[in-house]
């Protein structure tokens, strides 16, 4: 069942505060609300939101596309589109989403997801799992340990890169962006239950892949369902 967290509700929200909000409106609890309202009043104040979410959007684009330049291109398009359409953004968070909820972040990642899809439509190319990124987790002073870490990191990146697109996307949003299941559901347009199952299956696939690579009988990677 779809969760109406980020959509309009026709019935009055039982948890909506009696502060004059129209019936049927979802209570506003977005942690980014001050920044969003400031940017809506003065577009130059958008810079604060940009600095807060630049690395997250860029990471998402990089994991999706596997190329720094393409990730920069998608990041730029995402933020320009967000700025141009900020006046139309409406907050939809609920108390049940918790204190850290940010519908702005969900909205921003929806834009990023569309930007990635548009970009990919332009260049139908299989994304490569970038090996150099695995070096980021290695200790530059520990050469031997760093090499092992790089190798392990590369294996993990490749295992994730071989996943079908929806599973890979869900894993990246969960582990890299550290989104909650509700937020991922908002970004992907799925129910929370579907996202949980998606992530669980993705982890099982990654576990099989990694076990096959380290075990005596290596299995071929799963076909890409993209």
């Amino acid at each position, binding site marked *: 069942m779809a969760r109406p967290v980020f959509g309009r509700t026709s019935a009055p929200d039982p948890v909506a505060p009696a502060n004059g909000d129209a019936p049927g409106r979802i209570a506003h609890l977005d942690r980014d609300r001050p920044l969003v309202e400031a940017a809506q009043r003065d577009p*130059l104040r958008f810079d604060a939101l940009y600095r807060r979410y630049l690395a997250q959007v860029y990471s998402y684009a990089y994991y999706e596309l596997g190329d720094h330049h393409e990730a920069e291109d998608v990041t730029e398009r995402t933020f320009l589109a967000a700025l141009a359409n900020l006046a139309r953004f409406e907050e939809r968070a609920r108390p049940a989403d918790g204190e850290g909820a940010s519908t702005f972040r969900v909205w921003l990642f929806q834009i990023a997801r569309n930007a990635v899809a548009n970009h990919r439509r332009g260049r139908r190319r299989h994304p490569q799992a970038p090996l150099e990124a695995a070096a980021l987790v290695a200790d530059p002073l520990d050469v031997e340990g760093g090499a092992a870490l790089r190798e392990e990191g590369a294996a993990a990146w490749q295992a994730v890169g071989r996943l079908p697109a929806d599973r890979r996307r869900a894993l990246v949003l969960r582990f890299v962006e550290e989104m909650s299941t509700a937020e991922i559901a908002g970004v992907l347009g799925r129910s929370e239950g579907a996202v949980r199952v998606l992530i669980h299956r993705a982890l099982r696939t990654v576990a099989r892949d990694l076990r096959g690579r380290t075990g005596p009988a290596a299995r071929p990677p799963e076909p890409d369902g993209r």
Partner: protein
Amino acid sequence: MTGLDRDSASADALLTDLYLDAILAGAVRDALAGGSPDGIGDRLDPGVRRAADRLRRDLVRVHPSFRFEERLAARLAEAAVALRVPLAAGAEGRLVPFPAQGLGPTTGDDGAALLPGSDIDVPVDAAAADLAADLAAAAAQRDRSRPLIIGGALTSAALSLAGAAFVAWRFGRPGRAATPMARAARAVREARHVAPRARLAVPGVEDLVPDRRRPRRLD
């Protein structure tokens, strides 16, 4: 897939979700480091748990270059300035109640001024109400109950109104212009009106002018 399998998969997925919540919050990692893993990890499939721990460690956030960050920031600032231009053209103007003669600015229940002469309650702030009172005093003899927009639009509207008034006055002004060009134009125009009459006054001149209305004699 049977309903039982689906329920089992959902339960496993929920357990995985709880475990991910814990490791992303750092709770399980700390507990594992202390040698006392909590119950969630024990109940989870070991392969899934190892994969989650490894992805937690290896899937890092990637930062863009500083140069890209600043370049995009500058581009966004340019776009923001472009978005602000419509505001500067008068969209930031605010509604000010302009009361009818003999009426001061009315206020609502919450003390906010309301637009008089209208059934629509449009609350305005106190400063606007003070300004409205001043304007009402200045326009004591005139009945204007429409709201005005104070801001950039007023300036442009005032300039436009002044220009239109000047043109109307200039066209309707009695008297003649004294510039050389105006005098020359006037002289030419008057000469065109006067010359035919002068020609007609000279005897025999009309024979020199071919009259197309008369049939020509062929002999």
